[in-house]
């Protein structure tokens, strides 16, 4: 039974976890860096401890300081949120060794899930379909070229230690393989200290559909349907929705069952997400397993009425899941927009600064998870997520109309600060998205269209090439980012 929980995170997710703790009667210990002394979560905390300077490496990634803070404050559990230490098996192990319940899977399970290539092997053993490609690391450029020729271009080279859209390169043709292989390995080594890479077929026309699973420590597992996260830019999710327009009830049940089977096969417990690609023909391929609560989890909460953080905490405390598969009901449609402090006109460059004005939406079936208050400073040290706006509607058109209304209520002023709210409205109103016919290339195509390069297949190919060329930059840009 968890009584006093330390939240080892910041921003909106720290606040999100604190709110559920209060609802459950669990005391909250908040931690913060010297740059976050005015964070809204501190007002909800029973105790707050400063754990380091602004740089995440010395504060939110500082295991000794966080564990000391937990000890000092008398916490009996730690919730890692997403990003930062949420998928660090060492952190989970140190917590356990210090008598703290880690809200997440067991450290040994996390350690095995840390390597994507290993996870693919485990999921293949559990009978989950994988994209054609290697499950094992590709050791030489010659091996890579041979495998790529077998599975057919375009292929994608992925860093085994990568995640959250980082450490991957799309290779459109054989002539570009050698350079992309070396660049991805070098980047992976620089960013993750692990140059191991593997290869997959790159599906065109695919949708990113992920299944939310919940497992307890008694061998029970359920799924709570899917989230469609196909609206991505450089593999970073911008809009998420449930249900997916690509899935029918039969496919949902099939993917859900596969996800639960895969999670239970590795001894998973807590909330987890199985990411899949789904092609035009309704074939689905396992991508990765995210062993944490995800940024977009409210979408699932809106359509199921299940508090995922509450379930995480219950399960971590040893209790069985509070509901069975037959009690999970998907109702209506929900959509989330991640409002980032970024300038879409400048390649989505982050725009830190002071939020002199911050008006966020409200109203019926409109949920806003924000980590800032008016007057707060958006620090250049952390990710640029300003607020998540989530709405529910009885069907998709109603949800889209509601989101459009909500987005118009956003007013953000501050020197140098821009937001992606306007960009989100453009996405929602785009006929391809509105019709639910978009793919994971939608944002690239939309941006290319706006720049007047048209949407013919040749140009799309050029887009993939540009994406590949930008990967180095992406890796460097995102080396300190922590968005899930």
């Amino acid at each position, binding site marked *: 039974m968890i009584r006093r929980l330390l939240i080892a995170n910041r921003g909106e997710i720290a606040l999100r976890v604190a709110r559920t703790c209060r609802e459950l009667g669990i005391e909250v210990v908040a931690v913060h860096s*010297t*740059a976050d*002394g*005015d964070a809204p979560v501190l007002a909800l905390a029973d105790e707050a*401890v*400063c*754990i*380091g*300077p602004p740089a995440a490496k010395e*504060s939110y990634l*500082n295991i*000794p*300081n*966080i*564990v*000391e*803070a937990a000890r*000092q404050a008398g916490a009996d559990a730690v919730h890692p949120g997403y990003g930062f230490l949420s998928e660090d098996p060492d952190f989970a192990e140190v917590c356990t060794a210090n008598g703290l319940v880690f809200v997440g899977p067991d450290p040994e399970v996390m350690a095995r899930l840390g390597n994507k290539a290993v996870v693919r092997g485990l999921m293949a053993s559990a009978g989950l379909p994988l994209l054609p490609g290697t499950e094992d690391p590709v050791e030489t450029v010659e091996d890579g070229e041979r495998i790529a020729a077998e599975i057919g271009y375009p292929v994608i080279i992925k860093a085994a230690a990568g995640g959250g859209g980082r450490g991957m390169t799309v290779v459109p043709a054989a002539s570009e393989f050698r350079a992309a292989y070396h660049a991805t390995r070098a980047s992976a080594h620089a960013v993750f200290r692990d140059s191991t890479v593997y290869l997959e077929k790159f599906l065109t026309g695919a949708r990113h559909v992920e299944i939310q699973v919940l497992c307890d420590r008694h061998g029970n597992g359920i799924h709570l349907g899917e989230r469609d996260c196909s609206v991505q830019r450089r593999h970073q999710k911008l809009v998420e929705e449930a249900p997916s327009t690509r899935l029918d009830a039969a496919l949902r049940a099939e993917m859900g069952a596969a996800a639960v089977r895969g999670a239970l096969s590795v001894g998973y417990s807590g909330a987890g997400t199985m990411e899949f690609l789904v092609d035009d023909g309704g074939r689905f391929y396992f991508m990765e397993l995210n062993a944490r609560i995800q940024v977009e989890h409210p979408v699932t909460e809106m359509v199921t009425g299940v508090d995922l953080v509450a379930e995480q905490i219950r399960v971590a405390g040893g209790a069985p899941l509070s509901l069975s598969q037959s009690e999970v009901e998907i109702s209506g449609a929900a959509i989330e927009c991640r409002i980032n402090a970024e300038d879409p006109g400048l390649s989505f460059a982050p725009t830190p600064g002071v939020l*002199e004005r911050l008006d966020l939406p409200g109203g019926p079936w409109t949920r806003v998870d924000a980590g800032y208050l008016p*007057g707060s400073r958006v620090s250049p040290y952390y990710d640029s997520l300003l607020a998540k706006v989530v709405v529910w509607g009885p069907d998709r058109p109603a949800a889209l109309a509601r989101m459009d209304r909500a987005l118009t209520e956003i007013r953000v*002023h501050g020197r140098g600060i821009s937001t992606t709210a306007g960009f989100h409205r453009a996405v929602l109103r785009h006929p391809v998205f509105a019709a639910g016919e978009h793919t994971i290339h939608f944002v690239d195509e939309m941006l290319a269209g706006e720049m007047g390069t048209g949407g013919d297949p040749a140009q799309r190919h050029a887009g993939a090439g540009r994406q590949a060329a930008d990967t180095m930059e992406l890796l460097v840009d995102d080396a300190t980012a922590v968005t899930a």
Partner: protein
Amino acid sequence: MSEPAEDDHAAILHALTQEVAAVAKLSGAVRRVAMQAAGHSVEVEWSDTEAQAVPARVPDQEPRLEERDDVVVVRAPLVGTFYTAPQPGAPPFVSVGETVEKGQTLAIVEAMKLMNPLLAECDGTVDEVLVGNGEPVEFDQPLMVVAKGDSGKGEGGP
């Protein structure tokens, strides 16, 4: 409904400008002005001196200490437990009024069973110990104040 003509825009803008100028004269220093032409909107924000440049959560005495350049504030370099002596029952490393040399151990902060000595940054005199022995401390918390210099050569200010 037709779009307002160019002239109408100019007229609206002119009226808004007049309005802003009038409102801005009312009182105080203007911090921000927002105008919108077609929507006929005027927004003026006055300076809110309280809300400006408030440093994040600092103990009351800290600004005063910060302003003084004759002292060094020793701060916690990590989260842990503050100890003034090497072990229970032993005499403290230093006491208030005691002269210290640069590099001398002033206290320790224990974390994860590791003892982290706090060393004097300069020669001086222990002016104040702000935290009790055995108390938990957070990162950056002021722990001790050391007056710089060991001779009595004060600046002799007013």
